[in-house]
């Protein structure tokens, strides 16, 4: 929750991208999902396979930052196998935690050179 309040920081807020109607609607859905007791990681992983940031923006949106804050404890506990099976979340999480205005005291170490098999389009 300290992390969630990060999204409210002026430095972060001033950098949030402008969203169109479709992005705003989708953002509302992700914010709802992120508030649930159990977060749908498989669904999130699939969504992030085709998008660098969750709403297809050029910089992180409130949805990215909120989901990141929500996932931090979970990802911290991930094994190498978890990283491999949720490779798109791992990539995205690593990107968001390096977003400049976020003051993150502890980065979750993510190995960019992990060896995974080539993913074949479903």
């Amino acid at each position, binding site marked *: 929750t300290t992390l969630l309040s990060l999204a409210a920081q002026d430095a972060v807020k001033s950098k949030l991208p402008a969203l169109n109607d479709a992005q705003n609607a989708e953002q509302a859905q992700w914010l709802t999902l992120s508030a649930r007791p159990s977060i749908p990681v498989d669904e999130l992983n699939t969504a992030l*396979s*085709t*998008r*660098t*940031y969750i709403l*297809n*923006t*050029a910089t992180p949106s409130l949805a990215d930052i909120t989901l990141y804050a929500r996932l931090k404890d979970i990802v911290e506990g991930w094994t190498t196998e978890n990283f491999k099976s949720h*490779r798109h979340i*791992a*990539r*995205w999480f*690593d*990107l968001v935690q*390096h*977003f400049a205005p976020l003051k993150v005291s502890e980065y979750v170490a*993510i*190995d*960019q*050179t*992990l060896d*995974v098999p*080539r*993913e074949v*389009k479903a």
Partner: protein
Amino acid sequence: MTSVSVGTKAPLVPYGLLIAAKYANVDFEVNDFDKVVYNGAEGYEAAVKKLIEDHPEVYLGDKSKISDEWLLPAMNEYLVKDFKKLNPALEKLESHLHFRSYMVGYSLSLADILVWGALRANPLMGSIIKSGTFINISRWYNFLALTFNDTVDAYLAAVNKAKAATSTGKKAHSA
């Protein structure tokens, strides 16, 4: 002020050079010839190298110049129009992007610009990106397009303007 001069009859559009030039605040102009020239350096590879030499700020977030490893591939492997030769280069890029959102580090750098520029110029790539066969490449490419398409559009507009001017000129001449 030195600008990039792009020949509209060149076999490939030097998008990587044009995008890098934008980050160096170097303008471009289009001309009715078949090569690209920047500050006396002729040809895509020479022009890119000259621009980097004059404007090292085009490395952007890549302070360690790791982008250098991608310079030659971007000017050769990713520009080839033979799929058998292009494919291993794409496999390499696909695997590089498994856990990376940008080519180097966590922000835009010269490697993104040059490799993206090569793929944008390569006529084989449109359908490959659309098909999503290389899922990481498609994601990375479409993401950077959000930032780089302005330069592509500016180039295409300049070409159209030049062509319109030429045809008007011809009409005026024949009339």
